[in-house]
């Protein structure tokens, strides 16, 4: 555009310059014509002067010597004027014919002068004087005649030149008019172009700014224009797009902020400088159980239950002084109660007006969690205590069961003493189940799996729970039920918990239908099970049922519909089943009852049969090293092994066991199996001992024995270098089977 403006103005200048040149040329030409005309007129004047002078001289000539004669000086002046006129003709005429005529005229003038001189100075001889006068007069007449001829020529030239000059003046006038007209068109054209080049982009920009002012952000002008305006419009378009982007960002930010405020679980209140609530979000409405309209006419102080310690004004003043403050307070709820909240308040001054931005976080759940945490911690402590008790109980039961079992083997069945000891052994077995529950409750550890016949487990567990209650079980257990590889104690706990829940749901008594059947899950099954074989257990009660809204949360920790419930029973069930790679579901209908379904992975049929074949005491031979810190445990285990035919050695801890094992091996009478307690207070336990024994003898055969039947080492004993386990309390039969399996490979 700058270049075009410069070119335009340069063009205008050149046009102006050309106009001046043309005008000067035309004026010069016209002036030359006029000068030519003036020159011709001047010639005519000269000629007339010449004629007049000649006539004057002729008059002088004729009157010389008479009364009318002029003085000689006057005559001389007239003649000299005449001569000047003749000579002045030569100033203009250079045309040869004219110049020749003028030369002749000049010559005549010279002759005239001479003749006059002769006449004037002659003083004698009248005839001669008259002759001289006549000669001079003739020459004067000739001059007049010549000048008349010249006049005719000059007049013709004047007429011709006048016509020519007039024609040239007309042509000049036309040229000037055309030049002016052309210049006018060019100037108008250039002006129109420049004005259009400038005003169009400006108008476009003006329109664009109006559109933006009217809210059409992001308006992009497609106007091209010249380089500078194109750049300006491009810059304007960028600005418009940036404005739009910024505006959208701001709107998005506002929307996000609004969404956050509207969707956050925290309550929000915007409080003005006077403490009035000017904005509130839905969470605050829910928290306070008040409508937004109700909140917006309240003071913030009206919302808080500050007690008697701090006034609302003091609280706001503290926030204002600190800039921001976090404090806990109770908020009055609509039902007359209070909600504990944590208020995070910030004071901001904008344009001279102060505002408090208050976020209120509902602490009810947190308080409840804290309560539950405390409760959990208490339970954990109780669990530790229970675990310890169970461990000790198991050690004690090992001795009790062991001795009862050995005593029974010395008595004949049917004897009165035999029956008493059988009852004592059963009571000890129930005590073992109790300790198992205590251990499961306390540790919740990995299941210590073994092949379990589900039918027996179902019957034992349900009877144990329902013993003495008005609820009965109806069993529908399929024949040839597959065995499961499960932690007997944990699965028993699951059965007991579900049965107990059903019994509690039927406070007026009823029947719990317990069913068991084999289930082979296809690839695509409705229970989301991996394809394979399962044993399906069902427990259907006739209780009040569970509400639909509670059904999804029934396995959540600490969720309970019972006022006295811990909320952990079904959670433990879900955890145990999941650890057995099984699945537990629940169906319920209010007033009809609840049905729990459990899928437990089944083992091969052959292994189930093998379990059957291994029942009964298996005697053997060999050297067995028993490591246990409890003396009565070492004693009863020694009795059991001796009864079974084994030679027994004893160690109190790992170090002694290693020493004995090493020496026996050196003596050529190595131990075939080492039975070692997992936990030795103050000494090397079984886990570390087996590791060191494997250093001495990589083929060492070790059985881990522990009162903590749910210890992770027991659940995966092979990974720790053991070949078998013997969970306390165990009887002679169980011990014999484990030893037989290990020794026979």
């Amino acid at each position, binding site marked *: 555009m700058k270049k075009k403006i410069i070119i335009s103005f340069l063009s205008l200048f050149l046009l102006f310059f050309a106009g001046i040149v043309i005008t000067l040329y035309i004026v010069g030409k016209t002036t030359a014509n006029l000068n030519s005309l003036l020159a011709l007129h001047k010639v005519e004047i000269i000629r007339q002067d010449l004629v007049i002078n000649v006539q004057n001289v002729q008059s002088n000539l004729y009157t010389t010597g008479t009364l009318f004669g002029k003085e*000689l*000086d006057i005559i*001389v002046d007239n*003649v*000299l004027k005449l*001569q000047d006129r003749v000579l002045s003709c030569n100033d203009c005429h250079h045309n040869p014919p004219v110049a020749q005529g003028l030369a002749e005229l000049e010559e005549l003038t010279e002759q005239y*002068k*001479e003749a*006059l*001189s*002769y006449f*004037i*100075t*002659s*003083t*004698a*001889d009248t005839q*001669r004087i008259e002759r001289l006068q006549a000669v001079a007069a003739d020459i004067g007449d000739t001059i007049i005649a010549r000048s008349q001829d010249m006049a005719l020529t000059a007049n013709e030239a004047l007429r011709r030149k006048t016509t020519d000059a007039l024609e040239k003046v007309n042509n000049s006038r036309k040229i000037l008019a055309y030049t002016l007209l052309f210049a006018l068109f060019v100037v108008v054209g250039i002006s129109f172009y420049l004005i259009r080049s400038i005003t169009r982009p400006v108008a476009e920009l003006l329109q664009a700014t109006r559109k933006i002012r009217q809210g059409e952000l992001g308006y992009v002008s497609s106007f091209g224009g010249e380089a500078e305006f194109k750049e300006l419009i491009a810059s304007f378009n960028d600005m418009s797009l940036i404005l739009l982007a910024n505006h959208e960002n701001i709107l998005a930010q506002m929307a996000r902020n609004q969404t956050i405020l509207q969707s956050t679980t925290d309550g929000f209140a915007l409080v003005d400088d006077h403490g009035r609530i000017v904005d509130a979000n839905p969470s605050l409405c829910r928290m306070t159980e008040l409508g937004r309209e109700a909140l917006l006419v309240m003071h913030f102080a009206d919302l808080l239950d500050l007690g008697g310690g701090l006034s609302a004004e003091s609280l706001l003043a503290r926030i204002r002084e600190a800039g921001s403050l976090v404090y806990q307070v109770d908020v009055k709820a609509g039902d007359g109660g209070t909600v504990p909240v944590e208020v995070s308040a910030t004071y901001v001054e904008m344009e001279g007006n102060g505002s408090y931005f208050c976020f209120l976080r509902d602490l009810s759940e947190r308080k409840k969690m804290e309560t539950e945490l405390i409760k959990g911690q208490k339970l954990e402590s109780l669990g530790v205590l229970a675990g310890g008790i169970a461990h000790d109980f198991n050690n004690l039961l090992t001795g009790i069961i062991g001795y009862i079992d050995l005593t029974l083997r010395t008595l004949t069945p049917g004897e009165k003493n035999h029956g008493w000891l059988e009852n004592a052994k059963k009571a000890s077995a129930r005590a073992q189940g109790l300790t198992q529950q205590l251990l499961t409750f306390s540790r919740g550890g990995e299941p210590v799996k073994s092949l379990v016949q589900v039918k027996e487990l179902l019957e034992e567990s349900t009877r144990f729970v329902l013993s003495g209650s008005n609820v009965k079980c109806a069993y529908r257990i399929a024949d040839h039920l597959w065995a499961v590889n499960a932690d007997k104690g944990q699965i028993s706990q699951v059965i007991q918990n579900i049965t107990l829940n059903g019994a509690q749901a039927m406070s007026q008594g009823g029947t719990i239908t317990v069913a068991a059947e084999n289930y082979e899950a296809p690839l695509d099954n409705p229970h989301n099970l991996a394809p394979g074989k399962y044993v399906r257990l069902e427990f259907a009660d006739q209780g009040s049922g569970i509400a639909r809204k509670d059904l999804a949360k029934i396995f959540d920790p600490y969720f309970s519909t019972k006022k006295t419930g811990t909320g952990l029973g079904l959670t433990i069930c879900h955890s145990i089943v999941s650890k057995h790679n099984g699945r537990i579901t629940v169906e319920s209908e209010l007033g009809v009852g609840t049905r729990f379904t459990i899928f437990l992975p089944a083992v091969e049929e052959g292994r189930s049969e093998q379990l059957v074949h291994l029942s009964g005491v298996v005697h053997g031979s060999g050297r067995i090293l028993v490591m246990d810190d409890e003396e009565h445990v070492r004693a009863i285990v020694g009795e059991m092994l001796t009864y079974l035919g084994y030679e027994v050695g004893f160690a109190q801890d790992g170090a002694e066991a290693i020493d004995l094992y090493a020496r026996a091996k050196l003596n050529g009478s190595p131990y075939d199996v080492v039975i070692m307690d997992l936990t030795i207070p103050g000494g090397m336990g079984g886990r570390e001992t087996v590791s060191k024994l494997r250093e001495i003898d990589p083929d060492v055969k070790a059985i881990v024995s522990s009162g903590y039947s749910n210890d992770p080492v027991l659940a995966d004993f092979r990974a720790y270098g053991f070949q078998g386990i013997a969970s306390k309390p165990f009887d002679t039969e169980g011990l014999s089977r484990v030893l037989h399996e290990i020794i026979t490979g």
Partner: protein
Amino acid sequence: MKRMFPGAQRSLAGHIALVLFCLLALALPKSTAAQQRETLLLGIEPEHNIFDQVERYRVLAEYLSDQLGIRVDLTIMSRYGEVIKRFRDRQLDGAFLSPYTAALGIRQLGLLPVASPVNLNGEAASRGYIFVRADSGIQSAADMRGKNMVFVDPATMEGYLYPRTYLHEQGVKSLDTFFSRYSFAGSHASVIFAVLDGRADIGAAKDTVYDKMVGQDPSMGQELRIIARSPKEPEVTLCLTKELRAELREKISEILLHMETTSRGKRVLKQFEALRFIESNPADFATIEEMAEEAGIPLDARDADG
């Protein structure tokens, strides 16, 4: 009487006062022409072509005007003798005079000769020729008897005084009886043409005019023959009236005598057809006086108008 004519007494006294005033005015010395007009008027005597002559002298007059700071006008005479009368009638301040009229003016009017121009031939003086047509058969004064003689003007030395002196020396006492006819042509050129044309047998003219015309047309020299030549006398002399202020006269003399020393003076001299001006004095005209005495027309008795 007194009671009867009191007004007449007062009138008489008035008239007496008027007469006394006029007498007083007349008694005051006359101012010069230049002082009255603040111009200088110089006269010129006619030569061959009075118009060319005036043009030449105008250049000189303009130069003098510029140098003097006063206007210098020229006036030409229709004949030679007229200048003396014009000195008186027109109150000329000076004039460029031929030798005879200069001598007359000096003698009769007390004119003061100032300077004479030196012509392009280096001559400041001229002489008179007495000439005839070559085929006229006139060889001497005796052959002139009964012939037709043409003079220039009675006031010219070359064209009248010298031939009168020559004829007187040759024993001619009366022109009327010696010639069949004699006349005055008015100018030297007219005399020469008159002889050439045969309208006169004998002519007398100034040598400069004669030589110039012969120089322009040598055939004229062959057609004419000079019978006698006069002694050389100052050709043209600027003579000023004695009434002119002495310092102005001296200034004029100074300007003219030093014209050739300035570039403009040289240009004017060239246009004036002269080389310079030389000083002139009354003694230069002693021969003219002698010639006049000898011819029987002494300068004192000579009528100023010729």
